[in-house]
């Protein structure tokens, strides 16, 4: 389905074929008018995001170049640290700690020693959960989109996991995965779910997939709704197999919604905090970047935590950038680029 070129810039493209000179000025005027309208429409969102997100981000970036308070050995009180340069960043990235005034590699049992392992943990969780959630969510959405008795109930039950607050979900799964919990009892196993790396990670992934798949399913379902039923009917009549229908009709049509869902899910997964924090406390290689940030804040090292937040932000930004470049997740691209391309 080609997106019609006139959409988005309908008025302009109507004139695209006319001689360029007279309507160039017109174009500029149009763009100016639309620009004014657009800025009024966008302003409320930008204002809110600036207060809640931009201000903290900027202050974190600023703080990350300050030293954390150090102890004045004479008074036993903390004193402000002063300018740190990039020390907070090298602390994390090179895993350098200071002990007794000298710089040493961070020993096991410090937060600094966990930086790279927490990055790999975070990415591991992200990749696995996003793939599982997308696949299962797609399946759920396809079923939910069908017409059958009781589909309202199915839709409601799919949303149940998501409607339970994450903190409670985590407690619920912690409870389920206890040594004498229902999971071991049901399967007749005696797995120490929180006692070593693989079961702990598996437990967190199961909980996260259970909790968040409905989010994917709902978004994909919304995308499926755009596809008119008669397209399928026509395809069926033409003897197209289910897989071909999926591959050549469903997937391309649902792609924009799907990519938005996957993109946002990825951004969220990269910031995962509650589930591993409550289920394992970060033990057995389940410490994510966000957990590390919180532990650093709780240790009173706000500036070094700010550096870690900033690093996390940059990492996620890069992931998003790759995402957008590679998959073309851009809600407006086709429309506007073609429209503008024509106009130029």
């Amino acid at each position, binding site marked *: 389905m080609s997106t019609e070129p006139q959409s988005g810039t309908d008025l302009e493209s109507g004139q695209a074929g006319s001689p360029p000179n007279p309507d160039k000025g017109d174009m500029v005027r149009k763009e100016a008018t639309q620009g004014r309208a657009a*800025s009024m429409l966008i302003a409320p969102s930008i204002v809110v995001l600036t207060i809640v997100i931009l201000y903290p981000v900027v202050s974190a970036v600023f703080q990350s170049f300050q030293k954390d308070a150090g102890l004045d050995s004479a008074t036993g009180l903390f004193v402000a640290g002063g300018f740190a340069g990039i020390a907070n960043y090298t602390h994390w990235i090179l895993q350098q700690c200071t002990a007794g005034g000298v710089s040493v590699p961070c020993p096991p049992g410090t937060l600094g020693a966990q930086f790279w392992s927490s990055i790999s943990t975070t990415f591991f969780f992200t990749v696995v959960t996003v793939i599982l959630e997308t696949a299962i969510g797609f399946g759920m959405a396809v079923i939910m989109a069908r017409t059958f008795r009781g589909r309202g109930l199915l839709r409601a039950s799919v949303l149940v996991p998501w409607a339970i607050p994450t903190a409670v979900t985590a407690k619920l799964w912690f409870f389920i995965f206890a040594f004498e919990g229902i999971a071991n009892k049901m399967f007749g196993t005696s797995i120490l779910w929180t006692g070593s790396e693989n079961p702990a990670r598996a437990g967190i992934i199961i909980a996260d997939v259970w909790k968040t798949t409905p989010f994917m399913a709902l978004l994909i379902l919304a995308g499926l709704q755009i596809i008119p039923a008669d397209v399928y009917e026509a395809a069926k009549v033409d003897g197209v197999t289910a897989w071909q229908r999926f591959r050549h009709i469903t997937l391309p049509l649902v792609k924009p919604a799907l990519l938005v869902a996957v993109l946002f899910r990825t951004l969220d997964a990269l910031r995962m905090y509650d589930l591993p924090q409550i289920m394992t406390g970060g033990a057995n290689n389940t410490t994510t970047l966000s957990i590390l940030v919180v532990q650093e804040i709780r240790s009173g090292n706000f500036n070094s935590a700010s550096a870690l937040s900033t690093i996390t932000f940059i990492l996620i930004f890069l992931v998003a950038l790759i995402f957008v470049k590679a998959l073309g997740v851009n809600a407006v691209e086709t429309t506007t680029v073609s429209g503008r391309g024509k106009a130029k």
Partner: protein
Amino acid sequence: MTTATATQDTEPGAHVNRKAHNRKRWESRRTYVFAALIAIWCLLPAYWMVVTAFRDVGFTYDATPFFSHVTLDNFRAAFSTDTGNHLARALVNSLIVGIITTFISLMFGIFASYALARLNFRAKYLVLGFILAASMFPGVALVTPLFQLFTDLNWIGTYQALIIPYISFALPLTIYILVSFFREMPWELEEAARIDGCTKSQAFRKIIMPLAAPGVFTTAVLAFITSWNEFLIASQLSNGQTQTVTVAIASFSGSQPHQEPYTAVMAAATIVTIPLVIMVLVFQKQIVAGLTAGAVK
């Protein structure tokens, strides 16, 4: 949207034969099997939550897989205000905050995504990038600066101290979804309506919005649940008067120090889940309305 105007020349009834009929029946059976599997996967852990919610606190860790030692005490404890649990008030708070958040983020989101999908302006990619970037900073690191900002404004313990952050959490996704929906809309219909004498905003409301309904309702559900589930911000920026359900549940405690109040927490979680299930049941028609319904045409 060329497909939306596809001709409806194929009457399904004309092609029905026995084979197709059988295939249909088989397909519908398969649908039910999958639907049942999905429901079990989604509801089984929730079932365990409900079982625990109805279990005597003295048998908290009893792993009997069906209802046993049934009691309503946990629900009573969850609602009893003399132990300092304010679940009822927290439910009201969560509803207020959630509804306002949903409403405002939808409104802002519709404005912004209309502009992004339909208008031409220079900073479009800047705006899109900025909006996306808002979902990239660790949420855990937002709390302290916001606390300081809202303390200066004397906002701690007000609804806006929760609503404004929640709007900003919901907005990026709202805008991206709506833009992707608006892009697929048959805007020539809007044009047609304007030729018929509608104003631009009338055309938008009467023609485009109904078509975009699945997207709008989906985003509404997403925004509401985002706000309903949020804990970190709420735990720091609310007080007793504006406490939301997540904070209220985190405040539950056992009768003894160190005792985990699982049963009461599960009872509260059960209660908290109900409004959302009702909401989905009420709105599920809208979630799947729109183009498939063909009502607009």
